[in-house]
């Protein structure tokens, strides 16, 4: 492969321009200060070299004005950079209300992505261009970090609590996805591709789920799980002695046995599934088994999605009804964009990947082919 010298990562999200502006400002400052210091050192070293006839009378050893100058100027510059960086960071941490939600689960050594309509991907993330996307992430084992260099977005994925990050892709293309927190043997292979699709292609892709069969929505698989775990035995349409009804539970206020009121949000629902005994609904005891360690985070997300819509009049999917219909129609025509085909291939590869050992993978020619393709696409 011929060497190329990429000098900057692709800029493909709404943060990238602001981020790079700050980055290049800092670069200029670095070059400037290094030049000043470097020039000073070299110039003095030559001019005042031993034996050179330069004027050395009245040397200065301490000068308050000079000291203050090079204390205050860097201080002011530093505070300016601090303000700039901090405000950019706050932007990156506050997702807009209308952001489309995607769930990400990290585990050794792959990324599971679940779109809210149930489309699942491994080590790939498809996002629409021009629409803010909010990732809600959790790890099943150790700390990982979800890192998309082209989007200038990175966040740790921690076991035990949700972390979020958001971005708006601005340019269609395929970009690198990395795990950037050391997580064990195949840490360096826990990555893949982020595919940013134009809205139309995205609709097409999500409708097909990148696959020929229309997948179940999150909600549907949640319902299946709900039944198979026999949740419905206790949590029926109405409150029973065994357990409270979960109709319209989402975003409702629940009275706890200790008298406090809790908003039944995602976090509460998750807690109630995994560790129901932490907070008990008023009037109930510790009858429900704890599901901590029994079911995966994926399953929790499905169940929560199902519970969110229990008794709700609408489906509550983030893709609006008309969009979704259009998407389904487009998908049913059986035509897939080339990008979607690539994505499937990649996904198939990714699914194969966790079981392959490193040596196998090196031998697998298709791997290098795909890698090369990505490398090309990454620029």
């Amino acid at each position, binding site marked *: 492969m011929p060497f190329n010298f990429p000098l900057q990562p692709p800029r493909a999200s709404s943060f990238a321009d602001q981020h790079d502006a700050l980055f290049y400002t800092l670069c200029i400052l670095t070059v400037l200060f290094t030049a000043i210091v470097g020039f000073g050192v070299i110039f003095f070293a030559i001019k005042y070299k031993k034996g050179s006839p330069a004027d050395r009378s009245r040397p200065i050893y301490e000068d308050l004005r000079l000291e203050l100058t090079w204390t205050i100027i860097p201080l002011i510059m530093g505070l300016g950079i601090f303000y700039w960086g901090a405000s950019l960071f706050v932007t990156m941490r506050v997702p807009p209300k209308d952001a489309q939600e995607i769930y990400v689960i990290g585990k050794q050594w792959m990324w599971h992505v679940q779109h809210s309509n149930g489309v699942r991907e491994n080590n790939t993330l498809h996002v629409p261009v021009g629409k803010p996307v909010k990732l809600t992430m959790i790890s099943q084992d150790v700390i990982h970090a979800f890192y998309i260099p082209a989007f200038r977005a990175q966040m740790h994925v921690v076991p035990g609590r949700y972390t979020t990050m958001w971005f708006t892709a601005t340019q269609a293309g395929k970009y690198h996805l990395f795990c950037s927190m050391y997580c064990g043997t195949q840490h360096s292979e826990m990555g893949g591709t982020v595919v940013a699709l134009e809205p139309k292609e995205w609709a097409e892709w999500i409708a097909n789920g990148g696959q020929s069969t229309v997948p179940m929505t999150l909600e549907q698989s949640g319902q299946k799980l709900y039944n198979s775990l026999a949740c419905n035995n206790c949590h029926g349409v109405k409150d029973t002695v065994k357990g409270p009804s979960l109709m319209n539970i989402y975003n409702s206020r629940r009275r706890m046995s200790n008298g406090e009121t809790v908003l039944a949000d995602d976090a509460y629902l998750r807690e109630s599934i995994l560790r129901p*005994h932490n907070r008990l609904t008023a009037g109930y005891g510790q009858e429900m088994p704890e599901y901590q360690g029994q079911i995966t985070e994926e399953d929790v997300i499905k169940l929560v999605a199902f519970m969110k819509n229990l008794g709700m009049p609408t489906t509550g999917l983030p893709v609006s009804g008309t969009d979704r219909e259009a998407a389904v129609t487009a998908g049913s025509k059986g035509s897939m964009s080339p990008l979607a085909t690539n994505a499937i291939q990649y996904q198939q590869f990714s699914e194969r990947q966790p079981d392959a050992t490193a040596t196998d993978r090196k031998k697998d020619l298709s791997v290098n082919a795909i890698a090369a393709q990505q490398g090309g696409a990454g620029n």
Partner: protein
Amino acid sequence: MAAIAHDHAHDDHGALHHQFENIEQQNDSYIVGMWTFLVTEVMFFGALFFIYTLYRSMYQMDWYLAHEELDVTLGGINTVVLLISSWTVAMAVRFAQLKNRKMVILNLLVTLGCAFTFLVIKAFEYAAKFEHHLFPGPTFGSVPSHLNGANSNYAQLFYGLYFGMTGLHAVHILVGVLVISALTYLWVRKADSVMKDYIPTELVGLYWHFVDLVWIFLFPLMYLMPKPH
């Protein structure tokens, strides 16, 4: 700079080491060194106390319930024992300053007795916890009645810190026992190093007071949680 001769009294004091100029400098150095060491110990236990504070603020109720399994009476007795031992060490230092050898030995022996009492009581407490499956691990909480209704996970965190903190404290006590025994032996042998100067006794005393200090905080934190209300 110049090097200029000046006398230093190398051989006047038997206990003066070659690097020091005089006995005041040497004693000062030892005291400052010991305090510096104790500050590192403060930071060492401080991190544990911080972890404790954080988790307790998170799991207040469960920790309250879990802590009820600890025996306040035994903890209280241990506190009294340690306070007395601290006092006897302070007395030993006092008598070392007065060069009253017999009283020093007596006080040190009482201190050792207190330390052993503490360790024995602690051993009984630990044994009970092991028996009730309250040591963290796979079988933790397999006798639910001993959890007093606390969430088993959070109770396990509590006992993790309980054994971690009191265990490290007990290790410090053990070290203290060794050091005090050595010191007592030197006094019994009428060794010059302790007889001529009270500083070695003072250093051991400082260490022992520190061990006592840690317990002064551990006791209310571990045994005396107020009921959340």
